[in-house]
């Protein structure tokens, strides 16, 4: 536990001492959210007001973008500079180091979600009980785990520059196709057909279910399955990584 504390502290220091990364990871998704809720947040017609539903979908986008970008680029940088090798030959099991990398991204994700919640409340579009909002935050933070594992799998194989490009190429189309930016109801039917196969869609729907009380089991199972697959991918990728 003491060792995990050291690993986590080092990771958090890395986050706090790199304000530029903080800007892109937190400010950008929140600014995006603020723009969309100010334009469409007061629209009705759904099970919950549009602004409240956006907290679930944009929240999913924000949490995924944080945990997808940070651990992967971090591990790619560590590998490139020889720091990952230094960790591998230390007395710390590498799983502890990698877990710390993933866990360190969670406060980031929580920061994004809290900022979005405050934005929704301030702009008057938040119409949900505190309990529902807390469930929503918990689902998004923990539901982002498979994306952190995917991020590690990619980070073990490519350099930091390529990792950023690949991860963005995964994130942005998935977000659009999953209806995290614009509701699928107003998109061509093709988007809905594809979305059902994307874990990003299921995280968004699971988050939405916390506000609407809709069914959640299918989404939970898909996310659990995705976690198992991405964990296996990360393990294989680690073993094949050149340190």
């Amino acid at each position, binding site marked *: 536990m003491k*060792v995990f504390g050291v690993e986590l502290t080092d990771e958090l220091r890395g986050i706090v001492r790199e304000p530029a990364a903080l800007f892109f990871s937190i400010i950008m998704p929140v600014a995006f959210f603020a723009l969309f809720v100010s334009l469409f947040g007061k629209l009705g017609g759904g099970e919950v007001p549009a602004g409240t539903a956006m907290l679930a979908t944009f929240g999913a986008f924000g949490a995924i973008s944080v945990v997808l970008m940070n651990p992967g680029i971090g591990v790619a940088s560590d590998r490139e500079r020889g720091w990952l090798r230094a960790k591998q030959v230390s007395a710390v099991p590498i799983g502890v180091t990698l877990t710390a990398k993933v866990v360190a991204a969670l406060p980031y994700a929580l920061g994004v979600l809290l900022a979005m919640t405050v934005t929704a409340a301030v702009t008057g579009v938040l119409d949900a009980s505190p309990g529902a909002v807390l469930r929503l935050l918990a689902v998004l933070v923990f539901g982002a785990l498979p994306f952190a594992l995917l991020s590690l799998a990619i980070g073990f194989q490519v350099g930091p520059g390529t990792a950023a490009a690949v991860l963005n190429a995964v994130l942005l189309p998935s977000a659009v196709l999953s209806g995290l930016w614009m509701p699928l109801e107003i998109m061509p039917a093709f988007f809905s057909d594809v979305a059902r196969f994307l874990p990003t869609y299921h995280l968004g729907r699971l988050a939405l279910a916390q506000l609407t009380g809709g069914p959640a089991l299918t989404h939970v199972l898909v996310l659990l399955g995705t976690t198992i697959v991405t964990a296996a991918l990360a393990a294989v990728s680690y073993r094949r990584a050149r340190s």
Partner: protein
Amino acid sequence: METVLGVRGARHSYGATRALDGVDLDVGAGECVALLGPNGAGKTTLVNMVVGLLPAGDGVVRVCGGDPRVAATRRRLGVVQQSLGFPTTLKVGELVTGAAVRAGASRSAAGPVLAELDLTDLAGRRAAKLSGGQQQRLQLAMALVADPRLLVLDEPTAGLDLPARRRFWRLLAHRRERGTGVLITTHLIEESAAVADRVVVLDGGRVRASGTPDELVARLPDRTVIAKTSIGRARLEALPGVVSVRTDGEHVHLGTRTPEAVLRVLLAEDPGLSGLRVESAGLEEAVAGLMNRGAA
């Protein structure tokens, strides 16, 4: 002498290429062993096994009796890499303290090591901003902070100037007196001769020779005959007293302990012989000779 590193029958292949082929190696407490060999000899593969990054094939690697692939065994191991880029966000003191905790020592172990390596004043500086020599000292501080029984140093003085090298070896000598064994890989053969108790020559994935630097030099040529000649390599290798043949552009370098006899044969067999000179052979020639023998 207590053995801090024992390697028996280490084998490893990369696809069809055999990098290590049954290597045995021991390092005792307080002993410094230099691992020499050309690029591709298998040094890096062997070091990767010793630090737990690779399995030993059907062989065995033990650090203080434990398997280095087990994290707990690596508490007894300190490693200095040839090149290491520190994270841009961490400070010197934080890195050494972190290394202490990771290796099971207390945080307070960092202070004395920082002082020993003259890093106390730099403790608050970002590690990535240090000079090359300071970064190398920082790596050594991180490797030493938990008082390891075995230190593995991969080209540790590459890029350091002469005073920094001397300082590095003085620090290491102090630790060796306290019983820390050292395995060092280096291309600086003369430097290894100065600091190592024993030299192990690796080539083609096998140990070609092992002994003290003096033993290796004594076993091999003490003179090098250099000349331009039309005599073919096969004949040169068959000349009485010739133990190594190396070509360098138009010149051949013949390692021998009987230079007079070699010269007589060369002059008799090649009337066009030119550029003739005879030089003393050091450990470098000895190592070249050993590798030559191995290839023969």
